[in-house]
C-alpha cells in the first residue's frame, strides 16, 4: 500500500439479516489518489452497499477498509470524504448557500470563512446567482449541482457518489458528466462513482470495476485509457465504443442483463 493509495479494501464481506443474505463477498480493491473509479453491476450486486461501507455508514461483516491510511470509521469522523446520493437530499428550509454551508457549520468554521468557501463552491458549480434561492425553486440538475458543491465544500480527499445523475434526463446527465469531470480535474479529488450506465461509467472513469450479481464480487477491472480531458467528442471515438463493448461483455459474462444499456449511435 503506497502513500498514494487513498482507499484500500481487503477481504470485505457483508451479510444482512438473520436470513444471511450475502450482499458482498471477498471484495479487494485499491484506489489511488486522483483515480476516478466507477462501480457498475446489476441491481442488487451490492455496489451501493460497498460505497456505504467505504463511508462507514454501514459496517462490514468482515474485512478491512482503509481510507487515507486510517480505518473507515476514523476517516468518517475526520470527515475525509463527501457523499452525493441519487436524491439531492437538500434541506428545504435552507437556502442554496446555507445548504452548501451545512458541513462547514458543523465543522465550526466561522461565518466569514464559510461565506468565502460557499462563494467558491457556487462559482465551481456555476450557480452564483442562485445563492439565495430555495431548493424547490431549482431544477433537478441544479439541485444535484448544489449537492455536489456541498460534498466538496470542505475539500475532502475522497468523493463518494451513489448514482447521482440517475434521476435526471439524458441531456442533463451528459452535461453534468462534463461538469463533474471539470470539477474533478480542478479539485484533484479521488472519486468512487456508482452507476447503472455503462456509457457513463466509461466516459467518466479512469477505471471501471465490474461487479457480479448477489453475492457481489468484483469480477474485473477495465482500465479506461481514453485521453484527458474528455469532451463531448470522446463519446464518438472508436476507442470509446470498444471500451463500452468490453464492459458490456464482462457484465453479460456474469449474467448482468439488467444493466441499463443506452442506445448506441448505430
Amino acid at each position, binding site marked *: 500500500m503506497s502513500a498514494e493509495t487513498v482507499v484500500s479494501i481487503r477481504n470485505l464481506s457483508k451479510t444482512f439479516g438473520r436470513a444471511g443474505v450475502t450482499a458482498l463477498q471477498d471484495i479487494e480493491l485499491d484506489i489511488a489518489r486522483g483515480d476516478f473509479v466507477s462501480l457498475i453491476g446489476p441491481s442488487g450486486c451490492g455496489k451501493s452497499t460497498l460505497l456505504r461501507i467505504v463511508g462507514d455508514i454501514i459496517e462490514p461483516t468482515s474485512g478491512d477498509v482503509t481510507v487515507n491510511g486510517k480505518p473507515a470509521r476514523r476517516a468518517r469522523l475526520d470527515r475525509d470524504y463527501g457523499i452525493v446520493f441519487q436524491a439531492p437530499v437538500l*434541506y428545504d*428550509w435552507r437556502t442554496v448557500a446555507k445548504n452548501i454551508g451545512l458541513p462547514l457549520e458543523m465543522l465550526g468554521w466561522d461565518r466569514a470563512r464559510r461565506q468565502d468557501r460557499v462563494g467558491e463552491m457556487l462559482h465551481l458549480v456555476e450557480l452564483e446567482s442562485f445563492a439565495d434561492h*430555495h431548493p424547490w*425553486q431549482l*431544477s433537478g440538475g441544479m439541485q444535484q449541482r448544489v449537492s455536489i458543491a456541498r460534498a466538496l465544500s470542505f475539500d475532502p480527499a475522497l468523493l463518494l457518489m451513489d448514482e447521482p445523475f440517475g434521476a435526471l434526463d439524458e441531456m442533463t446527465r451528459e452535461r453534468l458528466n462534463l461538469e463533474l469531470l471539470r470539477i474533478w480535474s480542478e479539485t484533484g479529488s479521488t472519486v468512487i462513482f456508482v452507476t447503472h450506465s455503462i456509457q457513463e461509467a466509461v466516459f467518466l472513469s479512469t477505471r471501471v470495476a465490474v461487479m457480479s450479481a448477489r453475492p457481489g464480487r468484483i469480477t474485473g477491472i477495465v482500465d479506461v485509457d481514453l485521453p484527458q480531458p474528455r469532451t463531448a467528442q470522446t463519446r464518438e471515438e472508436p476507442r470509446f465504443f470498444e471500451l463500452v463493448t468490453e464492459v458490456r461483455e464482462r457484465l453479460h459474462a456474469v449474467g448482468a442483463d439488467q444493466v441499463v444499456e443506452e442506445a448506441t449511435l448505430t
Partner: protein
Amino acid sequence: MTSLAEPVPRGTLRSVGRRSRDWLPAVAVFALGIVAWQWVIPDVFHVERFLLPRFSAVISAFWHERGTLWSAGWFTFKEALAGFALGCSLAFLVGLALSRWKRVGRALMPYAIAANAVPIIAFAPITNAWFGLLSPWSKIVIAAILCFLPVLVNTLRGLTSVDPESIELMRSYAASEISVYRRLRIPSSLPFVFTALKVACVLAMIGAVVGDYFGGSTEALGIQIQSSVSLSQFETAWAAILVASILGIAFYAIVAVAERLALSWHPSVRGTAE
C-alpha cells in the same frame, strides 16, 4: 415547480391583498349570514328570542356590555393561553424524548392515542375539586390536557419522518445526536407541529369556556354566558358566545401568522396554485 423567479426573501409576511376572487366568496357568505340572522331566522322561521335573538339585538347588547364582556373574554383567554403554553411545551418535550428512545415511544403510542379518546371534559369537575372552583388553574389544566395529545402525536410524527438518506448524510458528517436534532429533525418537524398547534389553540379556548360550566369565577366568560341565560338576557348571552368565538378565531389567526413566519420556506406557504 421549476420557477426560477426571485428568491424568497426571508420572513416575508404574505400580503393580505390577494386577488379578489379569493376572498369575495367568503365575504358574500358572511353578508348572507348576517341577512339570514337578522331577518330570515326570526321572521321567516319564527325562531324565538330565547333561542336566537335578532342580530341587531345581539350587537346592541354587545355594545352595551362591551366592558364586562371584553374583560371576561380576556380573563378566559389568559386561561386558554396558559393552558396552551403548558400543554404544547410539555408535549414537545415529551415528543423529543420519545423520538430519542424510539422503542418506548412505539410502545406507548397506542396508549397515548387511546387516552386521547377519553372525553377529557368529563374531567372538569375533578380539576375543580383539585384547584377550587374559582381558581383559573382548574381550567388551565383542562386546556393543557386537551392540547397535549394532538401536539405530542404530531411532534413525534414530524421528528421521525425524516428520510433515511438525510440521516445517512448527517452520519457522513459525523454529526452528534444533538446536531442531528438541531439541524435536521426539529426543522423538518415544524410543519407537523404547527398543524397540531392550530388544532390545539382552538381546543384550549373551548376547554377554558367549557370548564366554566362546572363552576368558575364570575369574571370568566362561561359564567357570563350562564348567568345571562339565567337572567333571561339572551342577547347578552349570545354576545358573550360571539366573544368566545372571536377570541378562538383570533388565537387561531395568531398561530397561523406565526406559522407563515416560521415556515416561509415551506412549499405550502409559498403557495403558487391551490
